[in-house]
């Protein structure tokens, strides 16, 4: 369960201050498939970063599974990121000099999973995503769809309960975009809360709930 209570995020200092989020309150239940839409600069990525514990709110309270994130130490927040949240970043955000296998393995390394288990889990994930044939390739030697699958596999491998995807189809052609969206829907069906940030209305229309944000404020809460 995700609960945001009057979240404000201000970037910059003194006269250069920019209010990226302005009193956002929101609840997302476990297992929901939600899309956040809005024009560029509306604050959707900032909202996603705060939900993903990657950024701190300037004001307000954020609860994840009844734990108040805004009151936790940086170290505890890192643990929450490690245990509960999976990210699919815009433009894939894969480590360029690491193979598909090594990219997917990363969250397990962070969790100190034993080598044999890691190998088994990564290979299973590669098979499940249909990218076993590119496991030894670096991102530069993969197609856009393969890269996004690697990114999703990486996000899922640690067994996260919340999957955050920032423009997951933005860098893909339409057909591959549809495939990736279908993959995210499958993941959601297995019980994972999926939050997608997009500016593509066609994608948003395929989610259970659409949250619209404009100038840092929620204008439509689905």
């Amino acid at each position, binding site marked *: 369960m995700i609960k945001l209570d009057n979240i404000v995020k201000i970037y910059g200092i003194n006269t250069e201050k920019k209010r990226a989020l302005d009193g956002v309150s929101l609840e997302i239940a476990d297992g929901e498939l939600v899309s956040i839409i809005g024009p560029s600069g509306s604050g959707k*990525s900032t909202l*996603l*970063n705060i939900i*993903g514990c*990657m*950024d701190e709110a300037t004001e307000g309270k954020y609860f994840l599974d009844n734990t108040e994130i805004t009151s936790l130490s940086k*170290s505890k927040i*890192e*643990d*929450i*990121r*490690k*245990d509960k949240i999976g*990210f699919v*970043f*815009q*433009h894939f*955000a*894969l*480590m*360029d*000099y*690491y193979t598909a296998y090594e990219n997917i393995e*990363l*969250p397990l390394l*962070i969790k100190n999973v034993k080598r044999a288990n890691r190998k088994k889990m990564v290979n299973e994930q590669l098979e499940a995503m249909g990218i076993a044939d590119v496991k030894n390739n670096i991102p530069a030697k993969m197609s856009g769809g393969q890269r996004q699958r690697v990114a999703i596999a*990486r996000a899922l491998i*640690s067994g996260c309960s919340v999957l955050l995807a*920032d423009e997951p189809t933005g860098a893909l052609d339409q057909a591959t975009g549809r495939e990736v969206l279908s993959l995210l829907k499958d993941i959601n069906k297995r019980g994972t809360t999926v939050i997608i940030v997009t500016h593509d209305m066609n994608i948003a229309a395929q989610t259970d709930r659409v949250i619209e944000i404009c100038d840092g404020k929620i204008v439509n809460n689905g």
Partner: protein
Amino acid sequence: MKSIFRNMFRYKLTAVFFIVAQLIVYTTVFGALGIYNRAYDKEKDRLLSLYKNRIELSVITSKKVDFLTYLGNDVDTGNAVLAGKFSLGVQELGGLNRCEMILKTNEELNYKLISGRLPGQGDGASSEREIAVGREKEKQAVVIDGKKYFTIEGERYEIVGVLGSEKSDYWDYKILLNISCVGQNVMTAVMSMQEYSIELGSNTGELDASYSKIYGNIRSVDEASDIKAQKINSAGESTMENTMARENMKVNIIAYIFCVLNCMIMSEFWIIQRRKEFAIKKAFGMKNIRIVRDIAVNVLELSCFSLVLFLAGYILLRLLNISTGFDIVFSPVTVLATIAAIAAVFLATMIYPVYKIFKFNPVHQIGA
């Protein structure tokens, strides 16, 4: 092993630059160590050449007179050597060369030989012209019938011993005569000097009585001679600094500092190259300290790999008889210096990454 190498060379260009810088670091460190060891060994040989009890006599004669032949009469403690700025013309070496001349022997002399014996200490008659020279001087000798000779003041001297030490070149440039086996020309040249520096030394006894006798012996030949003497208790001025300066120790130190600075600059480039990787790792919950630890392991792996490469290269060059300009002597000092060199590079390389990683916001780097 495969994964270690993969981690080390993931960022190939940076890794190669780092290894090259490290190789230069090791060259400068071992080069400097070599210079230090040579200077240290030379100083050790110099100290070993000093007698426990020493008296230095400065004699200015009033006329050209042979007092040296009588100087040791009835002196029964210590050895006397004519040293100082005493020089003779050696034909093979060209021009005047600084020499020493044994005047009186009562105990073992503090000269170090690598072969042969000291002049005047042979079994046969001591009237033969004999000389002992250092390794470097010996190279210039002429060989006649398998024997080596120097022509000094127009007289031929057989080289009966080679002075030298296994560890340093302290003895390599010395020329040693014995008054009991020098020719007339040398004696004439010596007598014409009129200013002499005589070293009286003993490891076994006090020299006061010997000095009194020598003083009397000189005065009995030349009453008007000016004799000044002083007991020497110190080890004299150390030669280490001069030796190190002569062998360009500073160049090694400056090169080392530049390499360490280079490693610092490279670490900055490394971080720029890896910032996306670190941002992703942080985003997935990796703690700063673990990221720093991974970098530290990476740097140490590269340092150790460079060291292995350096040692392998050194051994290979030695096997091929190619001069490296330094010798690696495995000693506690060498090990400590190597560890210190790695530690300095390690610290220099880690400063910027540590600062950067702790300041790092993954949001800004990934652009999520």
